[in-house]
């Protein structure tokens, strides 16, 4: 299954997501393009990931469902703001492309990538892992139901093995 980003996009549409905050990321490139092209969605480019926590919480106050797209390195930027999500029981749907996992070529990505699940869980975020392209969309669908139906903060971690970027040269060419 090559076009898992399109499958995520259709799942977000089906879940009624109308605001998408993102920090540009090679793994989410196609999904971001699909969201930008959708006139019913508002794609909001962020200067840092924690802005997206405020964005989606504000959207929920206004009756609109949001989702956040980021790389695992951005999770650390969000930590304090995840405390507000928990205290207020805001629904939160985070789709996180993983770095620092299998085959990482940049050592500076490894510490945050390896700590990502533990950091999220420490802040009360439910973590769903998607380790193959086929399971991503069903996992996002389940995460959206848990987030918006049960007012939970949920993160889907999309494995580096799925994204398959092997080198700086490979990343730059995408």
């Amino acid at each position, binding site marked *: 299954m090559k076009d898992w980003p399109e499958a995520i996009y259709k799942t977000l549409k089906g879940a009624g997501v109308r605001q998408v905050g993102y920090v540009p990321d090679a793994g989410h490139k196609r999904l971001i393009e699909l969201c930008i092209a959708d006139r019913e969605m508002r794609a*909001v480019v962020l200067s840092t990931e924690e*802005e997206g926590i405020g964005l989606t919480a504000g959207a*929920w106050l206004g009756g609109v469902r949001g989702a956040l797209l980021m790389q695992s390195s951005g999770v650390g930027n969000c930590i304090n703001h995840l405390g507000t999500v928990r205290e*207020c029981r805001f629904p939160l749907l985070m789709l996180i492309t993983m770095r620092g996992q299998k085959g990482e070529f940049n050592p500076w990505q490894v510490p945050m990538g390896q700590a990502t699940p533990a950091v999220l869980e420490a802040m009360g975020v439910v973590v769903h892992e998607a380790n193959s392209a086929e399971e991503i969309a069903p996992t996002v669908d389940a995460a959206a139901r848990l987030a918006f139906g049960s007012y939970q903060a949920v993160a889907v971690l999309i494995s580096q093995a799925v994204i398959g970027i092997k080198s700086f040269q490979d990343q730059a060419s995408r």
Partner: protein
Amino acid sequence: MKTALNRRKVVEFLLGDRKGLLVVAGLGSTAWDVTAAGDSPLNFPMWGAMGNAAMFGLGLALAQPKRRVLVLTGDGEMLMGMGSLATIGVQKPRNLVVVVIDNERYGETGMQRTHTAAGVDLSGVAKACGFRAARQVRNRSQLSSLRTAVHAAPGPFFAQVKVIAEKIPLVLPPRDGGLLKARFRKALLGEGADLD
């Protein structure tokens, strides 16, 4: 810094006869100011998430394009989230206003000087980030025009209001985040807010 403005009086004047205005208040003194002007379910006073008040306002303004959204926050809080001014400048919501009540101090931690005390010009930053208009206010004579802009100017509009650095009594809103969220949604979206 030359100003004779009292923060409570400024906020009370801006929020008087507010109609359907939606208000997000940054943590600390601005949350107390907004509450002193009259607690309302359409206030979302924050007790944490320092640096993110303006982004709460952006998410809300994009979700509710027909409602006016005012973010009232302090200079320390705004300095921590300065990147959000750039993010707002990209989206350009016409219904969003950010007002910084600038006493040039971290009021909750012992009145230490903030960057604005050294001359950092937040209204200049907002202007450079693409806000449709941004101004500094430090005189009583400018307040009437500020109030008109807060309620009617095309956004995103930004104002940095220089106020006297003084300790004033705490007027606390409810603390329970779940309650603040639920009452805001109910007042804005109606009884069925959580029935979908």
